[in-house]
Structures are given as structure tokens and as C-alpha cells.
């Protein structure tokens, strides 16, 4: 291949200040997109951490439930109906509710999510739960989520120092018997795990009883096909007051609630689009002024025999160079910001390969769109105007 003078590169790099400003603009658009998409995904991931930790294949919920945050109860008789199928190994009721936690240091109240289940069963795969199940068999003993927000108090640190922690939850005095790791979500700032009995002691006055459950978890016998079992269950249980989901469907159900049914998912999508538009405008401005400033030079190139097509390629090369060069600082700064956000909010926000590629793709697309708009200016480069 014949190597040519890299016109696009030389033109862009000749004026360093201008290039740096341009790259800063693109990096800025990049960071905006990374943050919006990152928050969006963190919101979804944060809300399904509990779902993902469930140690079972099928989930039963009330069909009126639309997210973990606002579950409706259903009769446990429905859950035991599922047991009739021979592929089913066991069924486990899970109780979820929100109540107030009093910060033992500041005495302030804050809403906390409480998860209750039979401590004889291994239901959730979360670090710290399995080895502490015996503790929550005692009355009014709870496990505290060390991923909870600071506002609940320095519970985890105090516990690890061996201090006994007693506080008021939902009007009852409870003890912390251990720590586990779940993390916050947009729905819950903190979490407690306890036995089903302790759960009812706490939610007694709400009219809750053991017969009404929030989430039913179904474990299948080894080798059973979840899809087939689900089909069988759906056709055998004709009552419309429960909904049967596979674990993955349960995860998607929660995600789609946040993505479509609330403004939160929409806001971040809109934010990403805005960042994209801002980036496009920035790149367009840069390319337009590059073309406008070099119009006589482009016309000269046409006069000495270069084609319009050659100049189009040069503009698009510039767009791609800007995209790639601007992406690098944008990417680096986004990782830095993710770390800060993760520390501050405890949201599970991290850089993923798919998001890195998505933003790179969006950046290239952004630069190509601006290039396509900016090249209209190139037609003004008329070689006939040069002799004058």
C-alpha cells in the first residue's frame, strides 16, 4: 500500500490548543454518557442483587406486585399447591417489609427493608448469611447489611469491634447478631435479615400473619428442567391470584419496572440522549470551524486535482480521530468518577466492557453524524474562486 501524507491528522494536530479544547468537549460528552448509563445500570443491578442471590429456580408472587419495594401478599396455600408437582423439591415462603430503624447514635429514624424466612432453610446466597442463620433463631436478633447507608449508624464497624448493638426497629428493641453483604438499591437504603418468626413479631401490628407471604421460592429436584416445570405449573394452577416466574424472569421483572414504569429509568435514558446531542453539537462546531477556516486550502486541493470524495474522507478521518482521542480521557475520568460514586452512594456502579464499547460506539456515531452535517460546508470550497 502507498502511504500518503496523513492530512487529517496533521490538520488537527497543528493547532494544539484548539485540539485540546475539542478533546475536552468530547471527553465531557463521554463522561456524561458514562455517568448516565452507569447510574441506569447500577439502579437495575442494585435492585436485583437480592433476586440474584435467591437459591431456587422458580418464584411465586402476587400478580399485582410490581417491584420488590411494593409487594402484595398472597396466600401460602398457593405455594403449597406447587409442591404437588413431583419435580419440585421444596417451597419456601419469604417475607419482605419496610419499617423504621432508629440510628443508635443519633436516635434518628430511617426506613429499612426487612427480609424474613425460615432459618432452617438455605434461601439466599449472600456473604455472611449462611454462617449466621443460627443467631436469628433467637428472638429479636437480626443480621445487618454492611452495605447499608451511613445514616443507619456505624453498625458494621461497631459490631466488628465486638460492641453489642441494640436499637429500636419498628417500635421493638432488637439486637444485631451478625453482618451480611447485600448493598443498597434505589428502593432500599439498608437491609436486615431475620427469621420468619422475628419478622412477624416486628410486623404484628400491620395485620401480617404467617399465612400471607410476599415471595415464594421454589427449589426443583436436580435435573429438572425449569422451563418445562414452569409450563406444567402454569397449566395446572388455574387460579389467577398468583404469578409464576423463573428466577431470570423475576430479575427482568424488577428491572423492567424501574426501566419503564418509573421516571427513573427514563430520566437516565434521556440523560444519555442529551449527552449524545451535546457531544454531537460540540464535534459539529469543531469540524465546521475546521472546514470554514481551511476553505481556501480545500479549494486549492480541489484545483490541483483532488476530488470532493478525497476531502470527504479527510473530514471523516478527522471525526474519527477526534472520537478516539476524546474517548480515552473520557473513559479514564469515568472510571475515576465511578469509584467516587460507589464510595459515596454504595451503588454497585462499575465499568463494564459492554458499556465501554457502547459509549465508544456512541462516540463514533456522534462524530460521524457531526461530520455528515459539517461536510455540507465543504461544497462551498469552489476551485473556480481561487483565481481572483
Amino acid at each position: 500500500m502507498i502511504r500518503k501524507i496523513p492530512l487529517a491528522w496533521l490538520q488537527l494536530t497543528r493547532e494544539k490548543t484548539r485540539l485540546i479544547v475539542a478533546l475536552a468537549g468530547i471527553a465531557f460528552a463521554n463522561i456524561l454518557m458514562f455517568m448516565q448509563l452507569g447510574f441506569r445500570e447500577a439502579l437495575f443491578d442494585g435492585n436485583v442483587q437480592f433476586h440474584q442471590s435467591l437459591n431456587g429456580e422458580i418464584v411465586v408472587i402476587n400478580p399485582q406486585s410490581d417491584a420488590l419495594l411494593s409487594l402484595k401478599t398472597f396466600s401460602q396455600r398457593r405455594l403449597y399447591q406447587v409442591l404437588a408437582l413431583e419435580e419440585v423439591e421444596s417451597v419456601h415462603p419469604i417475607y419482605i417489609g419496610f419499617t423504621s430503624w432508629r440510628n443508635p447514635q443519633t436516635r434518628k429514624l430511617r426506613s429499612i427493608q426487612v427480609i424474613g424466612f425460615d432459618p432452617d432453610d438455605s434461601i439466599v446466597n449472600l456473604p455472611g448469611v449462611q454462617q449466621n442463620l443460627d443467631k436469628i433463631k433467637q428472638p429479636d436478633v437480626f443480621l445487618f447489611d454492611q452495605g447499608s447507608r451511613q445514616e443507619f449508624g456505624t453498625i458494621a464497624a461497631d459490631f466488628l469491634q465486638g460492641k453489642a448493638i441494640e436499637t429500636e426497629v419498628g417500635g421493638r428493641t432488637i439486637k444485631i447478631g451478625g453482618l451480611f453483604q447485600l448493598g443498597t438499591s434505589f428502593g432500599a437504603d439498608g437491609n436486615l435479615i431475620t427469621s420468619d418468626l422475628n419478622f412477624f413479631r416486628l410486623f404484628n401490628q400491620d395485620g401480617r400473619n404467617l399465612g400471607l407471604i410476599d415471595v415464594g421460592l421454589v427449589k426443583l429436584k436436580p435435573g429438572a428442567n425449569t422451563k418445562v416445570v414452569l409450563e406444567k405449573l402454569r397449566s395446572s394452577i388455574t387460579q389467577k391470584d398468583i404469578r409464576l416466574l423463573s428466577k431470570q424472569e423475576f430479575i427482568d421483572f424488577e428491572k423492567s419496572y424501574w426501566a419503564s414504569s418509573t421516571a427513573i429509568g427514563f430520566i437516565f435514558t434521556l440523560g444519555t440522549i442529551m449527552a449524545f446531542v451535546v457531544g454531537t453539537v460540540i464535534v459539529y462546531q469543531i469540524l465546521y470551524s475546521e472546514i470554514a477556516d481551511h476553505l481556501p486550502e480545500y479549494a486549492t486541493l480541489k484545483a490541483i486535482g483532488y476530488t470532493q470524495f478525497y476531502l470527504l474522507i479527510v473530514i471523516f478521518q478527522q471525526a474519527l480521530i477526534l472520537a478516539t482521542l476524546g474517548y480515552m480521557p473520557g473513559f479514564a475520568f469515568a472510571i475515576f468518577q465511578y469509584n467516587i460514586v460507589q464510595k459515596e452512594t454504595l451503588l454497585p456502579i462499575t465499568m463494564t466492557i459492554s458499556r465501554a464499547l457502547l459509549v465508544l460506539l456512541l462516540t463514533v456515531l456522534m462524530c460521524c453524524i457531526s461530520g455528515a452535517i459539517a461536510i455540507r460546508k465543504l461544497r462551498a470550497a469552489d476551485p473556480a474562486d481561487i483565481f481572483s
Partner: protein
Amino acid sequence: MQQPALKIQSLNHYYGKGVLQKQTLLDINLEIGAGEFVIITGQSGSGKTTLLSLIGGLRSVQSGSIQFLGQELSGASQQKLTKLRRQIGYIFQSHNLLGFLTAQQNVQMAAQVNNNISMQAARSRSQTILQAVGLGDRLNYYPENLSGGQKQRIAIARALVNQPKLVLADEPTASLDSTSGRAVVELMQHLAQEQMCTIVMVTHDNRILDVADRIIHMEDGRLSYNNSLTPARLSRQFESNT
């Protein structure tokens, strides 16, 4: 008799449309031989620049005919005109160098317009021609760091690097003082003679008329005066006779 480098027949050109239409060239007939150095003079608005841009294939021919080495420009497609332009060297009044390229890269851009030349060949050819115009020690200078005369010499190098059969120059000395203007024109004449290249130059500059083989005067879009007995031609005829 050798084929003329340029043959122009009943060329007319108009600007504008309808009642505002203005004729800038009226019935131009002109033949320019290979290797001839022709200067076109005339008041501004006399149509000389229009004529130059038509010859150079930068504007489409409206009526009449221009033949460059036997190729008809009238009715030629954009693609054909672009190809044709690669066989012509252009020197502009305001040199029109690419500011973000060095002297050598500017010349190389012209050398590379033909795709069948290697990077190395383009580079060495550019260096050779820049040495020939006396800028061998300024290869890696950017235009902004060079004087007007030096920039115009890069423009000459760029126009001549592909050894074109025709060079079109539009007031190449306009922005230069008399000494460097003179030097630039003599350089053009010298290099063109070496390469047997036809030169058509538009100029107001009376100090350089003597280098031409022929001086054509234009007035209101017509050729008014066609003097072939310039000192340069006489001396050249004298040289060839002896």
C-alpha cells in the same frame, strides 16, 4: 507543425442570469504553442482571470471550445476535469499553501495527487524541486515562518513537481517586492524551459513583461492586442539561429 498546447475557438462566457446577465468573454480565439511563455495583461474586470480559470478546467465552458493538448474541455464531466487538472500546474496570487503542512509536505501533496507514485518517490521529487527553487534548507518550515517570496517559490515548486505541460499563474508577483518578484518569474521561466512547459500568466506587473514570448492584452472581454515580438522571443530566436 507541432500540435498547439492550447487551442481556443470562439469562446464566450457569461455571468449571472436573465436581465442581469453580463458577458465577460467575447469571441476569444487563441492558439498557444508548446513551451511558449504567454503573459495576459489588462484592467481588472477585463476577463483575464475568467479566461485563466476556464483554461485550467476550474470553471465549465459555456460556449465555444478549449482544447488542451487535443483534449476538449467543453462539455467535459467533473471527473474528467479533475483528471485534467492533475496535468496542470497552478500558481495563485496568494500562494494558497496549506498552513498546517511544511514546505515539503505541501509540494508532496501535489506530487501524490497521482495515485501511482510511491511515498519515497514523492518525497525525493519534492525535495529535488524545492532545492531547484532554492529552498533546500527550508524543507521542514511551515509557511507562516517563511517570507512572501519563499512562499511563492514553494507554490512554484508545487506547480512544477509533476512536470506539467501547462502552468497557469495568476498574478504570482502581486504580493512581492520588485527584486523577489523578478526572481520568482525568472525562476518560473528557467524551470519551464527546462521542462518544455507552456506558461500562461496573468499579471499587472509591467516590470516582468520582458520575460514573455508573447504578450496578450485584454479589454472588456476581448483580445485587443497580440504582440509576439517580445525581447525574450527575439533573444531565443537569436540563440536558436546561432
